[in-house]
């Protein structure tokens, strides 16, 4: 995406949790930024769409699941973990993220070419390398009690 002015980039993440309390993470393929890092499904908010429709579309495209219900867990913009250097973009990218917990979904996991591997993980056994922005979003989803986090 080519921005006329570098602004904070709005993005969404989905913490998809199965009944065994494991979360779905994807290993980023060589087709996308930060290849070889594990991350949550998600992506840039698409101009002309809204937070939830972007969440549903990114989940559907990347891991093939249909989101039935998504709850806002938190909004994130801590530059320590949301400003990421991207060599191919040639600059540091600055994200502000809305993260949604998805426990109600349909379908079977089927990934697209942005993903080279996929798996379900327990909170205390997350894979590495994990994209630096993801840890807090995952742990917030586990402790979420209905009140959204602002970080």
């Amino acid at each position, binding site marked *: 995406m080519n921005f006329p002015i570098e602004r904070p*980039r709005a993005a969404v993440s989905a913490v998809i949790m199965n009944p065994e309390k494991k979360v779905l993470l994807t290993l980023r393929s060589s087709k996308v930024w930060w290849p070889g890092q594990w991350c949550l499904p998600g992506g840039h908010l698409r101009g002309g769409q809204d937070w939830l429709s972007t969440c549903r579309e990114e989940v559907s495209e990347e891991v093939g699941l249909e989101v039935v219900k998504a709850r806002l867990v938190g*909004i994130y913009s801590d*530059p320590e973990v949301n400003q990421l250097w991207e060599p191919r973009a040639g600059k540091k990218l*600055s994200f502000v993220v809305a993260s949604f917990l998805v426990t109600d979904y349909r379908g079977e996991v089927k990934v697209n070419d942005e993903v080279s591997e996929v798996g379900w993980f327990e909170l205390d056994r997350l894979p590495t390398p994990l994209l630096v922005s993801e840890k807090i979003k995952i742990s917030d989803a586990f402790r979420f009690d209905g009140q959204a986090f602002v970080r």
Partner: protein
Amino acid sequence: MAQIIPIPAVNTAIFNENNEILLTRRSAQVREPGKWCLPGGHLEVGEFWLDGAVRETQEEIGITVKQAILCGLYSDPTLTVTQDPIQPEGYRGQFVVALFKVLSFEGDIHPNHEVDDWDWFDPNNLPEPILKSHPIRCLDAFHFNGTVFVR
């Protein structure tokens, strides 16, 4: 049609002891002059969401927000995409907004040059003309009971 680019932004909802909400009228120096709106503005690169809300509120109306809670997250393109391209860049902005309900603040209201009037309003009886995305935010902040509105 011009490209649409999401622009992260913040609003604050401030209530007086009569549960009336503070609105400002936009001066001739800003986009959509003469319309009433909630305090707010763009989030800066590398800025925490809440810091952006505190900063914009301080700048526009001179009060210091001491405590605030996230009550809404907005991006509905039918309400948030600018009608005219933002110049000189030529794209249309889509304001993707976190709304904070202010629970306590310090100081007296001293608006800056972006504001030519301000007042307290019953959320069920808002003034006209008003930014079209803002009535729902005023009502959401008024009715907020712990679950963040995502629209």
